[in-house]
């Protein structure tokens, strides 16, 4: 992390001007990396704990997949709003979700500039850069 700063979920919410919809008690959790994806299998292949996902895919399966990989949170981009069943599932499984008006590309750029790496630059990624999407 740039300058040794630790990024927390609340920093991500602030940087992306995002509205936190669930699990506000986890806003102090540390996040080490991020991934932008709209495909469930990409998410399963290239994310793990201490990561968040930025996505434009509004589906309960995003939350189910997030639980499989122990994700730290999900950010819905470009103003997309999760449906009540997604919010309910997120609360049940304890996966924080937030919404930002920024599109995917700009959301990713803002977080990268703030020092949050992607899979390729994250030392704990499985397989490292050789394995990156």
């Amino acid at each position, binding site marked *: 992390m740039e300058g040794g700063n630790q990024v927390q979920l609340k920093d991500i919410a602030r940087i992306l001007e995002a509205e936190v919809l669930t699990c506000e008690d986890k806003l102090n959790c540390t996040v080490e990396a991020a991934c932008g994806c709209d495909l*469930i*299998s990409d998410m399963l292949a290239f994310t793990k704990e201490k990561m968040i996902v930025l996505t434009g895919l509004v589906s309960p399966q995003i939350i*189910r997949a997030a639980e*499989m990989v122990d994700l730290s949170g999900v950010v819905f981009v470009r103003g997309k709003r999760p449906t009540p069943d997604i919010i309910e599932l997120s609360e049940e499984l304890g996966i924080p979700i937030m919404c930002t008006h920024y599109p995917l590309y700009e959301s990713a750029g803002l977080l990268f500039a703030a020092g949050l790496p992607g899979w390729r630059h994250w030392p704990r990624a499985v397989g490292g850069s050789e394995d990156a999407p």
Partner: protein
Amino acid sequence: MRLEFPVAGRDFQAAGGAAQKIKRTLRQIGIDAETARRVGIVAYEAEMNIVIHAFSGKVGVDILPERINVFAYDQGPGIADIDLAMQVGYSTAPEDIKEMGFGAGLGLPNMKRYSDNLVIESEVGCGTSIRAVINLPTKEGS
């Protein structure tokens, strides 16, 4: 110890529920987080393959002292060319499924990626069965 759950084709509301129960049970009985994550991913992909492609099936795990075996079998169309299905990006999922974020052609490759051994058997017009082995970490290595 065996866990086994029925999976219904095209039921996207319940989809992922079996893998979730499997992963949660593994954590509750003290399986380490990384192994539970790998089993969860393999079971989830297997479950989603049944939901997307088959009429019905089952997914489950056998929990053994040194490893966890994930199994899935279905009644469905089967896979005509397993080598082709294993290729990243190859998918026969219909467009409406792709709009839901599936059908990227990564399901079987993901199962291979997160398991120590993967065996797929299929008969066109009958169904498909999958067995994946995930070894538990050795005491020295964990």
